[in-house]
């Protein structure tokens, strides 16, 4: 170190500053380019083991939101998103009612009362090899 001349020290500092600046600048650039304003919407939901939903059950899956139906035909699912403006509907007797604007649907998702015009969407249900039930909203 004692042999390091003032000129070399200055050069070393300059190089170090440039290297750090460059590294930080590159990091910031990558972060900028990699930044996602629109996080991808989740379209597949693992809702656990199939054995947790026995035959004859109708289970509310709040996370989706959806109603998972397990009957003699196997699994099916109804979206609980109102087809009018997208509010989450709630069970009402044997059917469903939208708390926002009052649309009513029967147990199969058919419209009983507007303002909704379209029936509830049927979602795709998949049971994986690990016996986990996956709901697809796309």
């Amino acid at each position: 170190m004692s042999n390091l001349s003032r000129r070399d020290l200055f050069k070393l500092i300059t190089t170090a500053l440039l290297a750090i600046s460059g590294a930080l600048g590159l990091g910031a650039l990558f972060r900028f380019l990699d930044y996602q304003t629109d996080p991808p919407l989740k379209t597949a939901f693992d809702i656990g083991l199939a054995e947790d939903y026995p035959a004859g059950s109708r289970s509310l899956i709040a996370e989706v939101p959806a109603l998972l139906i397990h009957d003699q035909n196997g699994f099916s699912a109804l979206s609980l998103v109102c087809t009018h403006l997208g509010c989450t509907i709630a069970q009402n007797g044997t059917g469903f009612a939208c708390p926002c604007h009052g649309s009513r649907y029967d147990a199969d998702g058919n419209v009983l009362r507007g303002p909704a015009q379209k029936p509830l969407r049927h979602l795709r249900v998949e049971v994986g090899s690990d016996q986990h039930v996956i709901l697809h909203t796309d």
Partner: protein
Amino acid sequence: MKRLIALGSALLLLAIVAAWWANSRQPKPIVLIPTLTGKPEYCLTCHSDLPEISKSHPIKTFGCVICHGGEALALNADLAHSTMRGGANPSDLSVVQESCGGSSCHSGTAEQNNNHIQRVLTSVQATYAGAITNILYTYGAEGDLTARFGIRAVADAQVTTSTGVPALQAFDPAGASNPAIQKFAVNCLFCHLNAQPLPGPQFDRLSGCAACHTPGIGSLPPGQIHKLTTAIPYTQCNTCHNRGNYDLRAMAFVPRSDQPQAADRVQNYYQPIAQFTKCEYELDCIDCHTRTEAMGDGDIHSNETQIQYIQCRTCHGTPTQLPSTKMLTDPNDIAFRQAQLNPVVDLELGQTVIVTDKGEPMWNTRVLPDGTYQLVGKATGQVFTFRPVMGSGCTQNGIDQSSAYCHTCHAVQR
């Protein structure tokens, strides 16, 4: 040269560190992705304390930007608010189409009963055509009482009633030579839903939809609250319909000193010299007056009497006729939607309700088995029972059943 490079690199490093420091001071954004738009918004980063505006507009479904505009991803308040629509009032009629419109929202069709914006824009409440026409006629500027001017120009492509007019021009008081008309313009044109609100935060939400649907609560000035409701108390109507003290000698408007709360309700009501029956001051205005009367029927009318049709006889009938009623048999009847928006009654198929002359269900009423009637206050939930005129000792001519005639016997002392 090397010194310059060293200095440049030091400055670059300093700039990067400063940028990192500034970025680290930014609040961590709270991301909301509304169901309706599917696009992220950062508004809740600062506004998470705001209550839901109404159960019909849940934030999880609507978010903020679809109604308010603004920069969804900005974390700087000035930038975020820079493109908001209507400032504190996105329902101001100058921006209402962008804020509240849409075929599934409030600019749909008459058949779907969601053409609210079109109706309001042509309504007397927005055009102020009645007052403008009367003033012009009174001071000789017009030869009759047919409306030709409104606060803003407006046209109606499809006139459906006998009193509807096709269009109004914007009233320009600069062309009026009569000083009384000019005074009217100075003192009165700031009222009504389509007017430029007076300066001051207390007036921010006294135009557009918010003027009625964002009532003040308690000690808050009217409109200073994040709320939309169809349960509109009379106090909100009274905010504008108080007739103040318009001094006809000075031709000047003097705001009432007893606002917002006087000693009792009948004293607090608008038109200090008017007579009232008990139900006119015990009920809220919206308990009787319909959405069509308040928001218009889609036609441009020359004055409020052409759109007002609720009378005492609507609910009480006449000495020779019971009020009109109907049984609710259609699940899509507008009555159910109105009752759902303001659930003060459990309305069910098969119930019989009073209907207006235009056939609108008064969904907050019902016919009771003993032949009497029940009305539930839309803003209070208070239950009132009342009898029909028929079978009573009333000897009033069956034709003369407007409230003015009923006041002769039924006005309360003020």
